[in-house]
């Protein structure tokens, strides 16, 4: 079973993934339409609380994508992000959020096709996860944010 009209928020860094998403667009690669992208200078600007906020506001999925490790425009922003997001990912079950609804990855400016694949597969994953009935119990999150 899967739910169709999900809502997904994407946090993308300006230099790599946002540009990669642009490239997917320029190449006219069709993608599911459930994702809404928020542009940031760097994944290092992604506050884990912002992600929880998104879940609390009813997001079915949250996707974070930045430059590949080593390629960060700000040298090390994505390493900071990785550390923070790893911790967050491990916390999600305790907060009653199916970890399948969260994903972070790296997509470079030249990986338009890969970006489209990421959107495609994550959207499917989210549909599956929320369709399976494990709609978030946001109480825990409410307490945190």
């Amino acid at each position, binding site marked *: 079973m899967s739910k169709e009209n999900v*809502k997904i*928020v994407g946090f993308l860094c*300006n*230099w*790599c993934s*946002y*540009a990669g*998403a*642009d490239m*997917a*667009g*320029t190449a*006219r*690669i*069709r*993608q599911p*339409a459930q994702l*809404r*992208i*928020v*542009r*940031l*200078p*760097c994944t*290092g*600007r*992604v*506050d884990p609380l*912002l992600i929880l*906020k*998104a879940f609390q*506001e*009813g*997001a079915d999925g949250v996707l974070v994508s930045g430059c590949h490790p*080593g*390629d960060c*425009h*700000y*040298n*090390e*922003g994505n390493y*900071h992000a990785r550390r*923070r997001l790893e911790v967050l990912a491990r916390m999600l079950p305790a907060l009653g959020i199916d970890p399948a609804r969260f994903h972070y990855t790296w997509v*470079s*400016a*030249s990986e338009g096709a890969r970006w*489209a694949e990421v959107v495609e597969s994550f959207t499917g994953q989210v549909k599956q996860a929320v369709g399976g009935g494990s709609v978030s119990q946001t109480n825990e999150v409410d307490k945190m944010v």
Partner: protein
Amino acid sequence: MRIGVFVCQCGTNIAATVATDRVVEAARAMLGVIHAESIQYTCSDPGQRAIIDAIQQKDLTRVVMAGCSPRMHETTFRRAVQRGGMNPFMLEMVNIREHCSWIHPDIDQGTLKAIDLVRKGVARVRRQAPLSGSTVPVTRAALVIGGGVAGIQAALDMADAGIPVTLVEKGPTIGGNMARLDKTFPTLDCSSCILTPRMVEVKNHDNIKLIVNAEVDQVRGHIGSFEVDIRRKATCVIEQKCTGCMICQEKCPSRAPDEFNAGMGESKAISIAFPQAVPLVAGLRKEHCRQFVKGRCGVCQKVCPADAIDYEQEDEIVSGAFGAVVVATGYDLYDWTGSYPTYGMGRYPDVITSMQYERLLSASGPTGGHVRRPSDGAEPQQVVFISCIGSRDESVGRPQCCSVGCMYTAKQAILTKEHIPDSQSYIFYIDIRAAGKGYDEFSRRAQTEFGALYIRGRVGKIYPRGGKLIVMGTDTLAGEQVEIEADLVVLATGLTAARGAGELARKLNISYDGYEFFTEGHPKLKPVETNTGGVFLAGACQGPKDIPATVAQASAAAAKVIGLLSRGELETSPVVAAVDRNRCVGCFKCRDVCPYGAVEQEQLPGGRAVAHVIDSLCQGCGLCNVACPPSTISLKGYTDNQLIAEVVEVLR
């Protein structure tokens, strides 16, 4: 709050799958929006005019422009709203083209998403404050990395414009790959005849400081003021003393591979790459020298009339300040020996690379310009050329076209006929790519005047039989398998980025593609810029290209630098972090995470220590913002409030 929303149709690029009128309608209902309209081509002159008119007539204080990616036109529209009298940062661009109309064929889905995105933009711009940057002085000096024809051209152009240039070359001489070539397509003029005068000019130019055997060690700073450490590697020869007499090379007992000759022939442990090298200075390679390997020799030191040898010489760091950097590190030849087992992987001495063949053709090469095959020194009669080695070949992970192979192969076939009149050349090709001016005519001449036989097909196997190399191929036009008993096989090996290009890119903070070629700012409109301000590209380091294209790009990069350095100061980006002193608890977590050392400690009159951001160093990454426990340090233009508002609005 008076917000204007402009929804671009981009002709049909957007309008075909986003109902822009419905987006306009929805926008009108959004909080703070007092004006909304749809425009056919907003970036056109009338389009920009319409925005300016609306600002002035309706007294707009904020603008949301929904159209292409901000990476495309943000600057255009910031300028437009500024002309309209607004602070340029009160503009928000919403991407309904790359992220919407182009990827969602369904008009309802596209329209709904576009409305969501516009709502997000409106919410964000409502929380935007006017921003302005500060100015920083510009260092009027340029650094050129790589001394091939690209680096030479860029250095000379800038130096001629009066800019002090430092040219850093990894090898012992400038000239790069072009110095190795025999003659050049499409005019067949001799490579060294046109290149060496330019090399000498570099050496003699008052505005150029040349540092060879050197690489960039560290880069700090940003556009307008880079600080660069250059590591000059020890060569055991004191450059200022060496006269280039080459006596040391003659007397040195240790043989070493001849890198200049692409591994054909031998050189000595101490040597000068070639007689026209610039600078004409000997260099010692420790890994081949007896003095270092066995611990005793000292011959060169004894024979050197200039007392130029210093075995104790150490690496030296030269530091410099520059306003701009031109990267011109060029290419290396694809190493085919690891991936073409069917061609012998380098086991057959008479299967050679195109660059090795250039050296065989060259009068200054190891055979003095007589084409002799490596195995037995015989003059080859049947010469087979194979195109696209390590190019256009997914099976070795390299799908791209080398862009020069077809042309230099035609050239080499012509030169073969000139060198050996009774020889026969065969060229296995997939397509003949000869798109430049006079290029197709040139490759035709190889066929009509010089008798080169073009065979459309790719070779399957090369193997030795009775002193010949059997080349098994296909003539796809004849539809038949073919076989050639060749004396010499020349592989048109593709071009890869110079070794270490990726590492250099990371130091310079510029991006590169999967093959380590550096990425230009925009494939059409910013072909010499990079994504890092003040760093420009020239030549084959950006992608395979021939000499005319290399030189054109080098001059373009030089022009960009000249333009940049002609300004006394630069405006910095206002997207920087700022601290709310009253709430700062002085924990300095922000300082710990800042990659640029942009946070310093500030002592308040009461004695309390708080964080302070140095605007000119801050690059606006926002790491500090997340690290700060009380969220006191905040990235302008990407404040917590703004981001939360965006999230809330798209989830409504």
